[in-house]
Every structure is written in structure tokens, then in C-alpha cells.
């Protein structure tokens, strides 16, 4: 089943389109990595798809009423904001609000905390945690929303290697359960290793869409990122390592 359908999605800043006519759909069971250099339009795509920006074209999520949208897709914004010194469980329980009450006792809260390796953190004050811990708490909040689709803007930036791999495995696990995740990500190696599908944006347009092997070709890497890289299939799965700048 299709969880998100974008048709000629366009986002403008002033008169300049920062996202120009992107058409794509995300189906159940997919873990989509959204790639592209800075300013390629990744955040605009994710926010526009949710209707958080004025858009041209059509987005199936933006067309929903706010309450229904909150039960269809969870969003993890790039800016990791925690305004008040609330406890971790209170913060994660905010994800339950679209389903009724923000109840810290709900099983989804415990599950989300366990998935992010935060079992001992329940009573800790969220603002007193380190940046990486806060990022994990915020991912747990989005998981607790238990939506068919999770939209995450740079969820693993700034995490330590263990937490990065853990988060990617959690996202892949959600896809395995028949849900779907679309996450913007700068680490091409992590994306190649864990995502089932990659979408490459370049200057606001869709440059490539397919499996990691199909998308991360030498020609595209040179054209879009201006880098060359090493790509191999190993017993651990696909490995990609950027090696140098070519521009």
C-alpha cells in the first residue's frame, strides 16, 4: 500500500523553486534514504510533503486533516528542540497525543524507549542529556507515535557510531514490519548499507531513484556530490566509502 504519494511537488522560496516538480511514492516495507548535497531540497521535500510549507503540486499527506495526518505520519525535524526540562518519558509520550492522551504508561512509550536503548532514561530530565542522547530521545518520541510512515530529517547526524547503526537498524526493522521510513541522510555509507531504496536530489530535482547499487554510481556521485567513492558487495552487505573530491 502506498503511504505517501507526491505528484509534481514544488516548494518555492520567493520565486525560486527549491524543490521542482518531484514525483514519487513511498510504499509499505520501504526504508527510503533521501540523499543530496546541502541545499538540494531534502528538508523542503520532507516538510512540503507534510504540508508544513506552502506547496505546489500534490502531496497525499498534506491533503489530510491535521489529526489524520498525525496518525498517518510521524515527523522528526532537523532542529532538535526540547524547550522545557521535562522527563524523558513525558517527552516520548508526546508522540501518543494524536491517539488520545500523552500517557507515559502506554506500551508504545516503553517499546520506543527500548528500541532506542533508553530503558534506564525514563525519569531523566531530557534537557540535561547530551546532544546525542537527546537525539535518541526525540527519535523515540517519533517511534511512540506508531504511524505507518516515519519521516525523519537527518535523524542520525551527530550520533556515535553505535547509536547511528542502532537507529538505522530500528528504521530498517520498522520497514520489515510493513511500515515505512523516509529519512534524509548525509552518510552515504550508512545509507548504502541500511536503506532499501535511495532517492537522490540535485538542485531541487529528482536525480535518481532506486536501489543503493543503482543510485550510487560513479557518474552520479561525480555529477551530484563531486566525489568519487569505493563501492563493494561484502558478506555484511553493500559497503560504500567516499574517497576523494574531484572538483
Amino acid at each position: 500500500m502506498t503511504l505517501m504519494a507526491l505528484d509534481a511537488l514544488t516548494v518555492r522560496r520567493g520565486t525560486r523553486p527549491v524543490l521542482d516538480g518531484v514525483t514519487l511514492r513511498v510504499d509499505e516495507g520501504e526504508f527510503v534514504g533521501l540523499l543530496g548535497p546541502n541545499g538540494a531540497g531534502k528538508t523542503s521535500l520532507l516538510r512540503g510533503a507534510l504540508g508544513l510549507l506552502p506547496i505546489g503540486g500534490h502531496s497525499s499527506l498534506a491533503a489530510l486533516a491535521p489529526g489524520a495526518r498525525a496518525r498517518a505520519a510521524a515527523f522528526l525535524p532537523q532542529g532538535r528542540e526540547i524547550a522545557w526540562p521535562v522527563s524523558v518519558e513525558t517527552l516520548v509520550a508526546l508522540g501518543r497525543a494524536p491517539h488520545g492522551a500523552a500517557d507515559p504508561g502506554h506500551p508504545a512509550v516503553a517499546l520506543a524507549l527500548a528500541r532506542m536503548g533508553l530503558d534506564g532514561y525514563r525519569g531523566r530530565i531530557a534537557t540535561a542529556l547530551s546532544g546525542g542522547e537527546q537525539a535518541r530521545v526525540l527519535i523515540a518520541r517519533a517511534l511512540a507515535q506508531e504511524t505507518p510512515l516515519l519521516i525523519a530529517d537527518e535523524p542520525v547526524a551527530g550520533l556515535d557510531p553505535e547509536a547511528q547503526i542502532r537507529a538505522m537498524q530500528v528504521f530498517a526493522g520498522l520497514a520489515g514490519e510493513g511500515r515505512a521510513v523516509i529519512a534524509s541522510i548525509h552518510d552515504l555509507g550508512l545509507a548504502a548499507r541500511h536503506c532499501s531504496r535511495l532517492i537522490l536530489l540535485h538542485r531541487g530535482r529528482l536525480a535518481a531513484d532506486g536501489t543503493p547499487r543503482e543510485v550510487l554510481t560513479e557518474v552520479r556521485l561525480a555529477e551530484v556530490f563531486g566525489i568519487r567513492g569505493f563501492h563493494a558487495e561484502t558478506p555484511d552487505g553493500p559497503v560504500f566509502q567516499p574517497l576523494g573530491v574531484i572538483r
Partner: protein
Amino acid sequence: MKSVFFLLALLVAALFVASLLIGPAGIGFGDSLAALFRGEGGPVVLVMREIRLPRAILGLLAGAALGLSGAAMQGYLRNPLAEPGLIGVSASAALGAVIALQTGAAAAVALALPLSALAGAGIAVALILLLAGPRGGALALILAGIAISALAAALMSLVLNLSPNPFAGMEIVYWMMGSLADRSMTHVALAAPFILGGGLVLLSLGRGLDALTLGEDAAQSLGVNLPRLRLGVILGTAATVGAATAVAGAVGFIGLVVPHLLRRLVGARPSALLPASALGGAAMLLAADIGTRLIAPDADLKLGVLTALVGAPFFLQLIWSMRRVEA
């Protein structure tokens, strides 16, 4: 956390009773209650029902209004330095009151002053909504509020400046210090609907403010209607603070300090902080008003002077201890 609410409610109740029992007329405990509830005791009945009861009720209402709107404003702007006066409503209400005093309308008709203050608050809200737009962000709201406050302050100075009568000038200065003395049940009847109505609006915003803890994008993605939340904050604050200013004058610091004091005690959740701050604000204003009667019964010590005098050092101490924790 339940015990926090219980203790606050108990404190408010005790201060309310104390406010009824303490005054220059030196009436005994039993006589006071007999007069209040059974109407026994001639002039004492008048003192209790016409002077002390409205004063205590207004202290309760205005304090709750200031505490509640302070918590809502801080929650909406996600900034612990926000206070209800930020959107310019208190300054505009004060301007309305000052104009009523200057023109002599306040002396001719008893309710001219609070009505004029409410009109000032109403104009400020209309201006805010016009300037900050229905879809604008928090920054537009703050800037519009600052502009309106500055304009209202300048116009107040102009009124004082042009005042031909030094007594009117003195009266204006005294009024701006804030007081609950010599208020009647008519003042209660005028302010209560706005404070209760606005208060209900603000209390209903708890869930949206909770979600805003995660930022505007995350809150919207959780199904919060931000433009509606903003409208609720503006209208609720305007109604409560406008009415409180109209009957009590400019009383500062409560809207800023009370949410600060109570935030950690209720687990920092904005939805819990709203009712707690309403109770805390009521307790603080009632206590300050009792203070004005006890400290200098004959000098007519002004309420706003006392809240700022006590509030500011308290606030400094709070910042000092926060600094040490964060360092």
C-alpha cells in the same frame, strides 16, 4: 505532583481568608465571619461585604489571570523570559485607564476607568492580530507586541506631559503602581467574565503547548493547529490581563516569576504549569495585597511596588541559583 496542586490550593484558600480578615477596621475573627455570611453586625457587614470581599476576590482573580497568562505566554514562545505584558495588552490597558483619569471621566463615572482600560486592551489585540497576521510566527508576535507597548508608553507619557492639572498627573502615577484598595463588587462583575472566559481559553491550550515543547514543525506534525493555538494565546491573554490591569492597575513580575517558581515542581509540562501558575499567581497577589495592608497600613503602599520590590530580588536569587546549576 498532585500534592503540589493541593498545597497551592490550600495556600490560596488560606490567603483568601486572611485577606478577608486583615484590614484597618480591626474586626474580630468571629464578628467578621458572622457579618460576611449572616449579615449580622451593622457597619461591619458593610466593611466585609462591600470592601474586603471584593478586594479579596479581585486579588484572587487578577493574580490567577497574571500567573496563568504568564505560563501560557512562556509556553507558546518557549521562552522562560516571556511575560503576559509582552504582547502590549497591559500597556494599552494602562493607556486606556490613564486617558480616563486625565479626561476626568474616571471621576465622573466610577466604571469609566476599567471600561476605558478594557477598550485599550481590545484595541491592542486588534492591532496585534493585524500586525502579526493570522499565520505569522512567534517573532512577528513579539515584535508587534514591543511596538504596541512602546507606542502605548509614549502616549501615556504624552498624556502626563500635557496634563494641565498636577493632581491628575499624581493620580495617574499612583494608578500605574497598581492597587486593589477601594474596589467594589461592580469591579468584580466587570472583570470576572473576562478573566474567567479568557482563563478557560488559556487552560484549554495545554495539549498544544505541550506539543510545542518539540518545536513548531513537530507540534504541527502532531496535529496541533498552530494558527488557532496562537489566536487562543493572544485572545486569552488579552482578556485576562486586560481585565486584571483594568481593575488592579499595572502589577508586574507575577506573570514572569510565578511560572518560573513552579515549573520544576510540576515536571515542566506546560499543560500542568497552566493551572499551577493560576493558583500560584493568585497566592502571590493575595499575599502581596495583604502585605500592603500589614507593612504600612497608613501609607497606602501600592501593590505593584510591593510585587516588584519582593519579586525582583527573588528573581535575582533564582537566576543566581540557576547559574550555578548550569555552570
